[in-house]
């Protein structure tokens, strides 16, 4: 099969998936975070009875509604792509993904659709308490529906709770709770949602800053900044904590991704963290042209070891250790894994052929061997390595991983500082005088999206060549269809999503210019 798959088909299929996923992710984080901020604002309205809070809530609810409506269902296109472009993969994982995605669909439909209607249509028609409950349930429902897709994604990064069925060629779930509560899934969910809260808080502050600069709706803007800044500080700190846990998961389960995003070529004890760095075009290691030298780097000693294993002197394997192996530290080399993977594939092939030839005794004995714990642990675990011919292709793009990780982290740190400044200036009553800061606040909105997208680039491009870690490389997942068809749909999506984005921005900008409606409060 693999000789029939050309790289341009794989690359175009990947580009198409990346395009749809990244566009989809423009809409999602704002929905997740803004829903919570609105719920907090409405809680303040119900607690204080101040109509200004109602007006504020209704205004941000309008922007939430526009973003939610334009973004809704854009993720379904990813499911179309699974069936068309990634048929081997979708069949292979169908049993694992079926349950989480079905729960997501039911939750999204019933919780969000029902309570969103009450949120928008229910003002003055249902009691304040009931309306507030609907708003909170919308926010919780939106975040819970994100949980299931993130559980599915986490499973691809660290497959757990399943067994391979050689008769159906599918991974079958053996323990739903292992899949749901795998550390990778829990940390991914918490990190993704908390970072989305950060993005939404920046959005609220940025839009409020524009009002203050224009001298319009200043009271609403200041109140919004206080809520968003406090929420943003808490969410940012939580994002740091969950990011730290996620990094440890990666160090344990995806050591090549970990080494790549830190540009760690040769492992060491007490490894240093590259806080900032620039990668040059010069090759650092003549045996591997993927490893480029650093033009400049600022390294903090021992921190990487602590980040990975909570031990200042722990050994962190580098790219070369993972390729060549390191006996001293018990790191298995790529050649060994490739040999085991090929043996696993050969056994599966022998089983398939024995079944086809009706050699039932041989087929039974091969199936028993394949399903044995020893084979699963020592051979099937490396199944995907059997497709790899050059160990160097196990290294993802180091500049892409390195820069996406560092952009995300540096911006994350900047956001904490930004929230603190916004809160300080507002509480001191100086925010309207800090016009440079207000302008920076507006330009921080795209930076929040950049950080959010960078996180996903790291998660997805950083795990290449795997679509399912160690079990299925991307090239084995793709459907053998014409590259031209994928190119056509790539450009089709580019046009459709860009149109949607322009539509959202136009409708949203108009609503921002109109501003909140008068609700008996004063400005």
């Amino acid at each position, binding site marked *: 099969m693999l*000789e029939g798959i050309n790289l341009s088909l794989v690359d175009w299929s990947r580009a198409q998936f990346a395009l749809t996923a990244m566009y989809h992710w423009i809409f999602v984080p704002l929905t997740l975070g803004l829903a919570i901020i609105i719920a907090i604002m409405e809680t303040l309205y119900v607690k204080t009875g101040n109509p200004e809070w109602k007006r504020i809530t209704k205004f941000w609810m309008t922007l939430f509604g526009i973003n939610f409506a334009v973004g*809704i269902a854009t993720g379904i296109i990813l499911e179309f792509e699974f*069936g068309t472009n990634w*048929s081997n993969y979708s069949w292979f994982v169908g049993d694992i993904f079926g349950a989480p995605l079905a729960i997501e669909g039911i939750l999204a439909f019933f919780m969000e659709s029902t309570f969103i209607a009450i949120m928008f249509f229910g003002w003055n028609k249902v009691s304040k308490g009931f309306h507030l409950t609907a708003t909170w349930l919308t926010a919780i429902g939106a975040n819970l529906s994100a949980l299931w897709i993130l559980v599915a994604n986490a499973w691809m990064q660290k497959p757990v709770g399943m067994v391979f069925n050689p008769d159906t060629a599918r991974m079958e779930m053996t323990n739903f709770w292992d899949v749901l509560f795998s550390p990778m899934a829990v940390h991914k969910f918490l990190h993704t949602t908390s970072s989305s809260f950060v993005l939404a808080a920046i959005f609220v502050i940025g839009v409020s800053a524009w009002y203050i600069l224009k001298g319009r709706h200043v009271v609403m803007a200041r109140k919004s900044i206080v809520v968003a800044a406090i929420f943003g500080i808490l969410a940012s700190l939580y994002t740091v904590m969950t990011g730290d846990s996620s990094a440890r998961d990666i160090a344990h389960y995806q050591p090549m991704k970990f080494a790549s995003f830190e540009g760690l070529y040769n492992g060491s004890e007490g490894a240093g963290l590259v806080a900032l760095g620039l990668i040059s075009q010069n090759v650092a290691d003549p045996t591997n042209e993927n490893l480029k030298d650093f033009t400049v780097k600022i390294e903090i000693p021992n921190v990487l070891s602590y980040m990975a294993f909570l031990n200042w002197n722990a050994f962190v394997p580098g790219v070369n250790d993972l390729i060549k192996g390191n006996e001293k530290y018990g790191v298995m080399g790529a050649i060994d894994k490739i040999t085991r993977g090929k043996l696993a594939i050969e056994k599966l092939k022998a089983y398939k052929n024995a079944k086809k030839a009706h050699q039932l005794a041989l087929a039974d004995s091969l199936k028993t061997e394949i399903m044995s714990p020893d084979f699963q642990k020592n051979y099937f675990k490396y199944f995907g390595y059997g497709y790899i011919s050059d160990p160097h292709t196990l290294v993802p793009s180091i500049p892409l991983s390195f820069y996406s990780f560092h952009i995300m982290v540096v911006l994350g740190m900047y956001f904490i500082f930004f929230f603190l400044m916004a809160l300080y200036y507002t509480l001191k009553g100086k925010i309207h005088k800090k016009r440079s800061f207000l302008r920076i606040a507006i330009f921080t909105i795209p930076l929040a999206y950049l950080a959010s997208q960078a996180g996903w680039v790291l998660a997805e491009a950083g795990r290449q060549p795997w679509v399912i870690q160690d079990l299925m490389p991307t090239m084995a997942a793709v459907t053998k269809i014409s590259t031209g068809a994928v190119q056509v749909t790539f450009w*089709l999506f580019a046009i459709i999503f860009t149109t949607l984005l322009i539509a*959202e921005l136009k409708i949203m900008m108009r609503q921002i210019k109109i501003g909140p409606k008068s609700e008996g409060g004063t400005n």
Partner: protein
Amino acid sequence: MIKYLKKIYLFYLEGFTTMPRWGKQVWLVILIKLFVMFVILKIFFFPNFLNTNFKTDVDRSNHVLENLTDINK
């Protein structure tokens, strides 16, 4: 029960009829998007490869198994 359902119906009806301009615009975006996705993209550009080309799950399994085991060493 019927009274309750009627109440819900009227709730939605009033909500949609008194919807502001931006609400109508986003509903238009939603409807166009769903039409493009499910009527154009799904039918003409994104047929499910395994469902279209194979009749039974056994055929699909065999095809994927063939793909997974036929590697160029």
